[in-house]
């Protein structure tokens, strides 16, 4: 790999550190009203500032762009290295897009300790952008872990009735995953001689070494995704978190697991990834069916959406480990789409909760009759979530299925019921919400969506249809990087990663 070089652009540093600076300013603002406006302005400006990443992005190359390097801790050979490629670009943009919406959806929901809340949100933004931009493993790990504290505080302080349990469970799960990541990163450092991530890719590690590193990666990332059976922290955390916390969790944090697979597992340990593919695929299929079935049984709206997340992220891991172009690009699209759609659904649930002070589906039955605008938004996002053609999720899931079909037809047949389940649980929710039955609770006193709430949901609605009808601007940026990733994966001796039949041959 090329030696680290700097392009002189400091856009990524700006994006990472401006939320921190905004948080410092927020610490000195006394008025709640100004705090909200300040955070909204800061996150919106950051979102606008991040747009040149897209316009200035060279789609023809798979190299890292907007790179920055500086020595950080020379004794330990740790660098401050940043850069993005086609895989991380959209995730960075998704993060900057979601954050102003998080501020908007907390506008009235959060009533106490607003300053601390906004500071937590801003620190989260810094850390999340940092994770997607870091090209030095230690830097990556620092951002990865730095996210834990503000997220645990978001859940633990502003959460629902079982917030303490949910917060600690989230923290302990993620932390125990990342200690293995720490071992893996030290082991890689000793093999490679630096923490620079591109240097770690495509090295002829022994099979045994790859296996151990892959497993360490896998535990850490599978907990973050979360993959079945590591998912149990997710429903608790989602249900108890405040709306903004749920949105951040669903839209960005879960993507870090799949991003980890794409950035580390596949290019650094290609042989082991190919070796373990059948198992990961099987877990993904289980996650899709399990998530769907469990979502079908939920009466709590947030739990329903949370379990649907497990199923959707199953599609993402399925696409990643199909290890072909269609599957990988589909997986990245699923990640983005899930961020848009599930984020929107959580905001919608938050809006319902603010009106009813309950998330029970039975309480919300028939709300659509009184609140048509809400029902319309909920309808579109629910359809998007079940991958209705013309919406964003259809593109992603279709590509994943197409990629997966090349990998193993049997598995795709097993996935099919999961797709039907998605329609079942989403339409069930939508039917209840919009029409209910003759015994609906009285909703006559409820107000329909206000201007702020429409503004919160509208951008996501735009993306639902934009990606759904014209995905080319989004897929365009990832082609080169995905091709490059596939080449790195194929470097595994004799493992093309395309055919499951070859895997046993490789393993011995």
């Amino acid at each position, binding site marked *: 790999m090329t030696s680290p070089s700097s392009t002189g652009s400091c856009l990524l540093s700006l994006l990472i550190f401006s939320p921190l600076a905004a948080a410092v300013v927020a610490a000195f603002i006394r008025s709640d009203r100004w705090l909200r406006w300040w955070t909204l302005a800061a996150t919106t400006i950051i979102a606008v500032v991040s747009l040149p990443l897209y316009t200035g992005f060279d789609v023809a190359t798979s190299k890292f762009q907007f790179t920055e390097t500086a020595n950080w*801790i020379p004794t*330990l050979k740790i660098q401050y290295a940043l850069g993005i490629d086609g895989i991380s670009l959209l995730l960075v943009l998704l993060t900057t897009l979601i954050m102003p919406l998080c501020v908007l959806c907390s506008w009235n929901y959060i009533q106490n300790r607003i300053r601390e809340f906004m500071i937590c949100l801003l620190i989260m933004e810094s850390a999340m952008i940092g994770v997607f931009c870091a090209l030095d493993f230690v830097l990556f790990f620092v951002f990865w872990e730095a996210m*834990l504290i503000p997220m645990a505080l978001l859940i633990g302080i502003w959460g629902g009735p079982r917030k303490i349990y949910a917060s600690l469970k989230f923290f302990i799960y993620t932390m125990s995953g990342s200690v293995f990541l720490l071992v893996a990163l030290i*082991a890689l450092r000793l093999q490679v001689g630096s923490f620079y991530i591109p240097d770690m890719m495509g090295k002829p590690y022994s099979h045994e070494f790859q296996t151990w590193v892959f497993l360490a990666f896998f535990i850490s990332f599978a907990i973050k995704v979360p993959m079945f059976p590591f998912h149990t922290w997710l429903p608790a955390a989602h249900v108890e978190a405040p709306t903004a916390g749920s949105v951040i969790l669903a839209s960005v944090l879960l993507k870090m697991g799949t991003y980890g697979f794409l950035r580390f597992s596949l290019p650094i340990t290609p042989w082991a990834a190919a070796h373990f593919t059948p198992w990961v695929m099987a877990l993904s299929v289980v996650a899709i069916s399990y998530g769907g079935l469990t979502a079908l049984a939920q009466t709590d709206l947030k739990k329903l959406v949370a379990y649907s997340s497990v199923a959707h992220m199953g599609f993402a891991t399925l696409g990643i480990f199909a290890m072909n172009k269609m599957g990988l690009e589909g997986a990245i699209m699923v990640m983005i789409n899930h961020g848009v759609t599930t984020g929107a659904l959580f905001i919608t649930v938050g809006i319902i909760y603010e009106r009813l002070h309950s998330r029970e589906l039975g309480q919300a039955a028939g709300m659509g009759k009184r609140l048509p605008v809400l029902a319309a938004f909920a309808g579109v996002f629910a359809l998007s979530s079940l991958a209705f053609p013309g919406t964003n999720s259809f593109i992603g899931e279709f590509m994943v299925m197409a990629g997966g079909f090349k990998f193993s037809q049997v598995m795709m047949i097993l996935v099919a019921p999961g797709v039907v389940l998605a329609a079942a649980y989403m339409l069930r929710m939508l039917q209840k919400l919009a029409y209910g039955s003759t015994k609906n609770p009285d909703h006559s006193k409820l107000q329909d969506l206000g201007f702020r709430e429409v503004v919160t949901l509208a951008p996501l609605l735009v993306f639902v249809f934009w990606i759904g009808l014209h995905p080319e601007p989004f897929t365009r940026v990832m082609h080169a990087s995905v091709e490059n990733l596939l080449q790195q994966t194929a470097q595994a001796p004799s493992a093309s990663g395309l055919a499951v039949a070859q895997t046993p041959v490789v393993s011995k």
Partner: protein
Amino acid sequence: MAYLPELVLLAGALVLFLVTLGESRTALAKQVALGTAALTIAASLAAFYQEATLFSGAYRVDIFSQMLKLAFGCGFFLILLLSGKLSDIREEVKPEYYLFLTISVYGLVSLVSCIELIALVVALEVSAFPLYLMIPMRRERAGQRSQMESAIKYVMFGIAANGVMFFGMSYLFGLTGSTSLPVMMAKLQPIMTTPLVITGLALMFCGMFYKLAIFPFHFWTPDVYQGAANETAGLVASLPKIGGVAILVRFVSLSAPDNRTLALLLALLAVGSMFYGNLIALMQTDFKRLLGFSGIAHAGYALVGFVALEQIGYAAAVYYIIGYLFMVLACFVVICKVSDDGVNVSIESLAGLHRRSPLLAVTLAVGVFGLAGIPPFVGFMGKLSLLSAALSKGYLWLVIIAVVNSAIAVYYYLSVVRESWFRDPGERQPIRLDLPTRVLCVALIAGILALGVAPARMLVTISDSIAKATAPASAVPVAAPQVTATTIPGASQSSLPDGPHLRP
């Protein structure tokens, strides 16, 4: 000039002695102690790049010792700020408390410069005896009478461990005919793998294991933490451990470069400490006892660095323990301020701290998350460098045990965060902080963050200084200690201009 920190502390101790002769001079004693601490920091900075030897080479001032003296000076100052009005010390002995504190710090400051066993033992005792006296200075009252028991435990274990250490030293003296560490190092090299040397070294380490509270020399730790006044426990938990690590660096480097038996011994003790400390900490309800057991675990982490038997590992251990000073003091600040009238603090009584005093809650969170090893705090960088050192020597199993232990530890650290951040204060009143405490809190948070985010300069300094400090006297004739004493500073001075320069 080179001995300025020691001289300042000695002068301070003398003045304090005069102050204690009078009646009720607590406020004056405190001011003298604070002044001494501030001057010690200034003196350490002024003498940072000085090199000198004293007493026929028994006492050496080099960058390693000066850096640690600076750490002791800072720690001394922070502990004085932390102890506030010494609310739980008997009124009539408060001035003496400051005197003993200063003498103990003086002992530590001279300890890190000793490179000869007899001088080292003297300095060690000078640093330890005041602590033995400070523990029973706690007020007696109903439900709080364990300070004597704690003090006796501390003394008995300390003397027993020292006895074992002297016994080991006598072996090594018998083998080498010298008490000077550089000379011993050179003479021990050829006979390194003989059982006698290994026994002697292992026994000699025991004294430091006691200071660090390494399993199985830890039994005093939780009881002393619980029985001593909060301020005293903060002192016992922090400064002597830096001294312990510093001397352990000198001792362990006697067994370098490759002594598999001793490395294995260190590794096993590290594993024992980590598991013992972390597992028992899970059960604690008293915050000081929890910190005591977590301290045992952290000593185990520090020992992981020594297993590498290499300069990089020693540097990691020193860096880690200096970071630990800041983290554990952050916790003790909270203990001292939350405690009503100096009683022990249970974890439950931290409930709602974020409403009672946001700054204290932030300090506690930073300290505890730092101890848990979460970036960007110093605990993470420390662990990363320790584990890198161990893994570079192939101790994968040890590294995995260490990270499993950090995962276990997260649980009890989180229980502290849970109480202080997620629970309601109930009836408890808000805590008002005076200005020195606020400054202290901000300084500790800044220290924990700065050491974690920008440790580059410090790591280089530690690493270089250890390379010089642990060099064997092989390049010089090993005939007499006097000769080595005159040669070594000359050799080190030649490379002085290359080092980074710090403006005092």
